[in-house]
């Protein structure tokens, strides 16, 4: 199975306390980037009329928004590695707000592409990644629950933003709505303010305060040493690895860890997820049109999406609780691949759904599956890569996912247009997800076995005293001679120590 849960952060995360405030902030900060593009489609008709453009041209706004949100991942990772989560999220919130405020003054569709697409999209990118990163810093034992609660912010935001957008549009027109939306997006700054920095230094301060007596002082000393060691270890490792003087690579690795591409688990995750997103969002986009195509009226079709959001809202925390259970946590990668395959099966069975009741049942299962996958999306990456390298990992993964996320719905659209039938789109999405689920399952099984093997080898090395001796005393000539009779010398050494003690004792006289 997976290696035991251990922290490679250099400190023990609190797993509670202020962490829950951080989760609340993260749910706001994650909710906006995911729900805003979907809720924004309410303005499409209005913008189409005002600027006399076609639907595909106005749909570019959300495409650019999504592309920038995911494409800005590496930039976000670099900034977090350098400055920490809090300043980045606050900057992101400011950017989002400013982008929408500027958009309310726009006079052409190109300006709206820039303001809403690029500026707000960049703001979202600076919001999304750091929020996920900071959860990994605050939680370890309860990390799946924390992750799923933070991801649950997305359907909650969607349910509230959609009617809010409609209300704003009816009362203030699209310009006033953009202005007020800009102010609402500034709440990401509030979320950012909640992201109190935490790290090895601050954790040691906490232990200084909580423990009493001499023991506390001693601990402080050791932890300071650890704190000093951890940043020094990294550059030392880098130096030993690349003694050819490749300074720029070291620097880049400090900001964005490209050595992750040698990490087996990371590669498995990346390949699986990049392929998964080909079929992840398309059914969501085409659910309402498909419902209308089968003869259901517009309001009932919209209601299907509401059902999906509500089921999603409850499915995410529940998945988190299940994933956090003692039995599931070591096998979380299997749970993730199962949920992807479950999602795929739902889509494959969708064309069999007849009438409104059938579609409602499909929507309920889709909502369940969607929530399960979303809740564990980042948790599994954290589990594979570890919280320390997660910062860079998420940046690299999001920019790779960016392409397939954008390709997915248009690909589905072309399938629908070519065959004139929605079922091929569902079959394609379902097939892709089932295959990815199977792929992840098999590859993670292999990964777990390799990890167990490596763990065994490492333990064997530690237990063997000979190898330890040779490593420690290789330089000293005197030691080289003595290593030949290493085990024999031990009792001698002990005798020496015992003599020393006696001498000390006599000295005390």
């Amino acid at each position, binding site marked *: 199975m997976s290696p035991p849960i251990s922290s490679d952060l250099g400190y023990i995360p609190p797993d509670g306390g202020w962490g829950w405030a951080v989760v609340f902030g993260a749910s706001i900060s994650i909710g906006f980037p995911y729900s805003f593009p979907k809720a924004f489609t309410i303005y499409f008709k209005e913008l189409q*009329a*005002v600027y006399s453009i076609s639907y595909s041209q106005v749909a570019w706004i959300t495409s650019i928004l999504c592309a920038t949100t995911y494409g800005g991942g590496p930039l976000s990772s670099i900034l977090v590695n350098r400055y920490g989560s809090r300043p980045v999220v606050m900057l992101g919130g400011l950017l989002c707000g400013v982008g929408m405020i500027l958009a309310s003054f726009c006079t052409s569709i190109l300006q709206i592409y820039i303001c809403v697409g690029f500026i707000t999209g960049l703001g979202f990118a600076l919001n999304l990644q750091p929020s996920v990163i900071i959860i990994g810093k605050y939680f370890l034992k309860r990390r799946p629950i924390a992750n799923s609660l933070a991801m649950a912010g997305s359907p909650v935001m969607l349910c509230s933003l959609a009617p809010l957008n409609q209300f704003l549009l*009816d*009362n*203030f*027109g699209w*310009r*006033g*709505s953009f*202005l*007020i939306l*800009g*102010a*609402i997006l*500034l*709440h990401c*700054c*509030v979320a950012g*303010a*909640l992201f*109190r920095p935490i790290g090895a230094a601050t954790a040691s*301060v906490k232990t*200084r*305060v909580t423990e*009493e*007596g*001499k023991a*506390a*002082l001693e601990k402080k000393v050791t932890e300071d040493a650890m704190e000093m060691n951890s940043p020094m270890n990294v550059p030392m490792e880098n130096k030993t690895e690349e003694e050819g003087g490749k300074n720029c690579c070291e620097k880049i690795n400090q900001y964005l860890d490209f050595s992750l591409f040698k990490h087996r688990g990371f590669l498995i995750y990346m390949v699986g997820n990049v392929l998964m997103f080909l079929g992840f969002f398309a059914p969501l986009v085409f659910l309402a049109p498909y419902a209308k195509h089968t003869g259901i009226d517009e309001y009932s079709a919209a209601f299907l999406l509401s059902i999906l959001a509500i089921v999603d809202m409850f499915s995410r925390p529940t998945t988190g609780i299940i994933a956090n259970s003692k039995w599931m946590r070591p096998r979380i990668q299997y749970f993730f691949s199962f949920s992807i395959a479950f999602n795929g099966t739902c889509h494959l069975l969708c064309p069999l759904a007849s009438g409104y009741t059938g579609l409602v049942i499909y929507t309920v299962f889709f909502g369940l599956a969607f929530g399960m996958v979303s809740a564990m999306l980042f948790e599994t990456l954290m589990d594979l890569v570890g919280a320390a390298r997660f910062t860079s990992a998420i940046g690299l993964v999001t920019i790779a996912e960016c392409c397939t996320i954008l390709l997915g719905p248009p690909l589905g659209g072309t399938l629908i247009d070519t065959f004139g039938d929605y079922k091929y789109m569902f079959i394609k999405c379902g097939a892709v997800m089932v295959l990815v689920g199977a792929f992840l399952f098999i590859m993670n099984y292999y990964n777990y076995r390799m990890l167990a093997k490596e763990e065994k080898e490492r333990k064997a090395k530690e237990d063997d005293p000979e190898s330890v001796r040779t490593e420690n005393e290789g330089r000293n000539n005197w030691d080289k001679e003595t290593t030949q009779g290493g085990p024999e010398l031990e009792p001698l050494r002990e005798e020496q120590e015992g003599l020393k003690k006696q001498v000390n004792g006599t000295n*005390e*006289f």
Partner: protein
Amino acid sequence: MRVVFSAKGPGRLLQRLLLVLLLCPFLSGRSPADPTMITQDANQSQGNSLTKMQAELNESSDNTSYEPITRTVNWKTQDNSPDDLTLGHSVSTPDITTQELKQAANESLSNGTYVEYEVLLPGVSGTSVGKNITLSSATRIELSCKLDKKYPHLRGLQVTWKRGNETIRHINKTENSWSIQLMISDNSQLGNYSCTLKGEEEISAVFFLEVPKIETKEKLIVSYERDTAIMICKSSYAPISWTWYMTNGSEQITINDSLLADKYVISGISANVTQLKITKLTKEDDGVYLCEAAFELGKSKGKLKLKVLSFIVPLKPFLAIVAEVVILVTIIFLYEMYLKKKEKRAEYEREFDQIEQLKSEESNGLENSGPRHRRI
């Protein structure tokens, strides 16, 4: 589409119909190769497809000349009623019917339009059946009321066709259906035509003949000062012309876009759709706008409401929300600073305590080691 042969006494009627079929081309003076449409009793459930076909015919018709012999175009909607009087022998030959329909449509181009509408009378009094018929150009129309086979007790009763108070002469098409033929060529002829079956109770059906309706955005259009507003009106049939009015209280003012070309721009995106663009909005532009479509048979209006707001209106909630955000962020930071100070104070106190402890232990140790040493 099903071609249904009425079959009372199937054999005899069929023969009669065949005769008519054969004789018709000679009567009209047309070549026998022209396909003829058989007048059929058609059952209509909702007649939506019918009105659509009607619309296509109307759009393509010239309306210039009307010849006495016209093509009757009848087609069935999806009809599954088992009580169909005409069901005796139903032939469904979709290919043939669509061919015939197409050719009929082509011919009506030059001949004008003729449509039939039929309604089934309800058996229960008090319920009235109605049918909305949209006409955009001059048509010859035949309205018929048919009695359902379900109600044999109502047979043989008198039927009157009325428009308002005026009675219209009708023809007994068959034993249980009565129809009137009308030539609708101007607005005054539109209205409600009803057929009433007088017996112990009165049973009636009404046909509402009207001009096409205009679709507009029903919600308020909100715009801002110095901004541009766009208003769109759509119609299901192409009108002859569009006119825009602005209502100022009770009076209607025609919008002349050539006069105020920089303020108003009227453009037609297509024949069915018109667009009014108002630039440089001011408070006076606030109000109700009417778009009027002129059809051959009359005019139809659509209403749009425009509201012009000043920029201060959304600014107030905006500033309120920004203020709230700033306050929240300040509270969070202040709380954090307060916690840090508390921690530092507590830490300082603990260090002080620990130092004191160390000092006391050292002094204790020295005292202790002394006696021990001496003891040995």
